[in-house]
């Protein structure tokens, strides 16, 4: 059942993004930025965590989840380390995504010839 929910949820997020992109003058950069900030906002009241527990990995794939992870990392950092945790905890949660993106992108760019 989570498979169906994943399909519907991830599809709906992409659909909303596409509607914003088609009907306004915003660029894809604006859309992704809006979604990240939205994800961080939904994290304040633990809304996104509830969505993830219902939907499954389909809710972890959209970029909204990235903002939510940033907020969760910062908040749990504060709970564990106090004020210092606000600074140390934030990137801990998204470390996997950022590090893998940077490493794979760099390796890929090294081993391919640039186009013209």
């Amino acid at each position, binding site marked *: 059942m*989570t*498979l169906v*929910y*994943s*399909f*519907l*949820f*991830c*599809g*709906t*997020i*992409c*659909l909303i*993004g*596409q*509607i914003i*992109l*088609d*009907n306004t003058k915003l660029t*894809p*950069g604006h*859309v*992704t*930025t809006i979604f*990240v900030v939205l994800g*961080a*906002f939904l*994290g*304040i009241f633990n809304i996104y965590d509830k969505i993830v527990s219902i939907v499954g*990995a*389909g809710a972890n*794939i*959209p*970029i909204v*989840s*990235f*903002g939510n992870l*940033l*907020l969760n*990392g*910062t*908040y749990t950092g*504060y*709970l564990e380390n106090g004020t210092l945790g*606000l600074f140390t905890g*934030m*990137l801990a949660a998204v470390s996997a*995504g*950022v590090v*893998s*993106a*940077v490493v*794979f992108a*760099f390796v*890929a*760019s090294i*081993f*391919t010839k*640039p*186009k013209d």
Partner: protein
Amino acid sequence: MNKNKYLKIVKDLTPKEKKLENSALAFLMGGVLGFIAEGIKLLLVYNLHLTVKDATTWVLIIYILMASIFTALSFFDKLVMKYKCGLIVPITGFAHSITSSALDYKTDGLITGVGASFFKLAGCILLYGIVSAFFFAIIKVIIYV
């Protein structure tokens, strides 16, 4: 030729964006990506006995790896042109933006090209994500602690 007539001609000549088709394609592609993600996660959880959190992280890493490889093989750009938000909004768009800017500026050298332009497109995600998450986290701390 007066202004209104000119505007009308321009409007007739600019290709109409197929909004409905774009939306349907984005919905389908996003849905399929979410479906596959959940499928891989379930496989990892039940076959390799990973925790849900670890399995989710592996799914993200697999998606980023695939997006980077496909971008480097230069057919991901065509897919992004076709499916637009279906591939931009999932985490594949993040990997795609980093890899494509690394590839585009490779001719300028490793430091001044790849290094300086690496986060050109993904920078807005990181910047506004981190800044907003910082202040929202302070609000959350004030509310709950």
